């Protein structure tokens, strides 16, 4: 069953300042679908439009043309904003956790926010926030501390906890684990996969890091010329998708390359 569907969406932005007429087309009749419970990866270089596509999927922006369907119905009604139930069913974790959280909120408040909206309060709220914070391995920290006084990786994990709080049906992960140290990164990806298995939540996994796809994504698409293109095996030695071939060529070595002794 298709949960999210983008049909021929186009989006362009003004460049060169607010009064400029020059526009850049970021998405060009892009189509992508994510099935219920599926993890679809969207890979691509910086500035290729991955995050724009993510924002359209979240209903944060509207396409210039084309449509975004959630459960077969337009994400935002032509007249009004998104229905509350739909809104709650879609959550996101972004690249920059400082930009995604209020500097006035404590760690507790960051995670509690969506739960409060859903009407959870009192002892139940405290218990659910506590267990979510523990799930992202921050059980030791003081939840009363201001969120912006946590390290980048800790704050990112609070954002992951917040996104998981309401057991969404779709989670847009936009470079959500890229900034975590490799050990915690692996554990957060395992945590997310467990959430997906348990609740049937679908992921749109946006990343530039090819290495993260292995064992995590069911299906991989690569952003090329403003459109996601399906790739069967991103690790195949050769690729006929030029963007993927370039990303692969730029992959760093696993180990230090020993300097060859000069003769």
């Amino acid at each position, binding site marked *: 069953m298709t949960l999210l569907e983008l049909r021929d969406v186009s989006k362009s932005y003004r460049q060169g300042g607010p009064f400029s007429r020059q526009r850049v087309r970021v998405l060009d009749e892009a189509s992508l679908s994510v099935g219920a419970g599926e993890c679809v990866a969207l890979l691509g*270089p910086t*500035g290729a439009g991955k995050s724009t596509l993510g924002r359209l999927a979240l209903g944060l922006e509207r396409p210039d043309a084309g449509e975004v369907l959630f459960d077969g119905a337009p994400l935002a009604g032509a007249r009004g904003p998104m229905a509350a139930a739909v809104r709650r069913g879609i959550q996101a974790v972004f690249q920059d956790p*400082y930009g995604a959280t209020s500097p006035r909120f404590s760690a507790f408040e960051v995670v509690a926010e969506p739960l409060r909206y859903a009407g959870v309060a009192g002892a139940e709220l405290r218990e659910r926030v506590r267990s979510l914070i523990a799930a992202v391995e921050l059980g030791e920290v003081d939840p009363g501390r201001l969120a912006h*006084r946590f390290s*980048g990786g*800790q704050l990112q994990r609070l954002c992951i906890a917040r996104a998981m709080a309401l057991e969404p049906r779709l989670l847009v992960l936009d470079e959500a684990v890229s900034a975590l140290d490799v050990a915690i990164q692996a554990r957060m990806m395992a945590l997310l996969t467990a959430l997906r298995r348990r609740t049937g939540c679908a992921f749109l996994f946006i990343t530039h890091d090819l290495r993260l796809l292995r064992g995590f994504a069911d299906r991989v698409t690569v952003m090329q010329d403003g459109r996601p293109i399906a790739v069967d095996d991103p690790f195949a030695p050769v690729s006929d998708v030029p963007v993927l071939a370039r990303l692969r060529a730029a992959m*760093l070595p696993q*180990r230090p390359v020993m300097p060859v002794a000069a003769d």
Partner: protein
Amino acid sequence: MAERLSLEGLVLASGETELVHGIDLAVERGEVAALVGNSGGGKSLSLLAWLDLLPPGVRRLAGTIRLDGTVLEGPGLAGLRGGVVGLVPQSPTSCLNPLVTIGRHFCETLACSGRAARAEAAGRLAEVGFATPERLLGLYPCQLSGGMLQRVVIALALCRDPDFLFADEATTDLDLESQAQVLVLLERLRDRRGIGILLVTHDLAVVARLADTASVLQHGRIVERRPVADLFASPRAAATRALLAAHHALYEGGTAA
């Protein structure tokens, strides 16, 4: 040009809690020193403390900063950032003003304006891999993607020709191609201009690619400091071994957690 910048016996605390327990770090001219470690281990705070830029809530209880043998305090310490050390902080958006164009950011950092500033800024942006840097000058930060912002911040950090560069996760938001470009740039700065680079990164492939030495910071303590080749060949501390296991799993599959 300075030869060595060091930080000795750094102790940081927040309220009653000690966060960093007396660590030593140093960068030398012409070398890339990596700082790796677990999330929340104290990497960013150590870097900020070194430049006297600690955020509210954290105090430096001890620690000596030395530039070529001279102990820096007060104004000397305050003057470190900019001409001596260029800083690329962890969150690129935090150091750019959303209401000011990229061009203005350069004017303010270079303390000049007009055609000369524009040409200088364009040159610096070209250095970090922008093909048409002039087009960027009129844009606002929100009009750029995360990876583009990251490169702009690097260009800004370098524009006063510092002797040292402190980069906190400077390539994290970059795709592999732009990352490779930035690493080539850093390598060139080290090899040709002899800049000393302190690189905080969670990506051990970046360490493997560029760093000469690496320090592993775990829960506010340096648990291992070695030349990079040795660290990969025979990691000693448990924390180092855990990081390397997770790193190798990214290439070979299997689970690391």
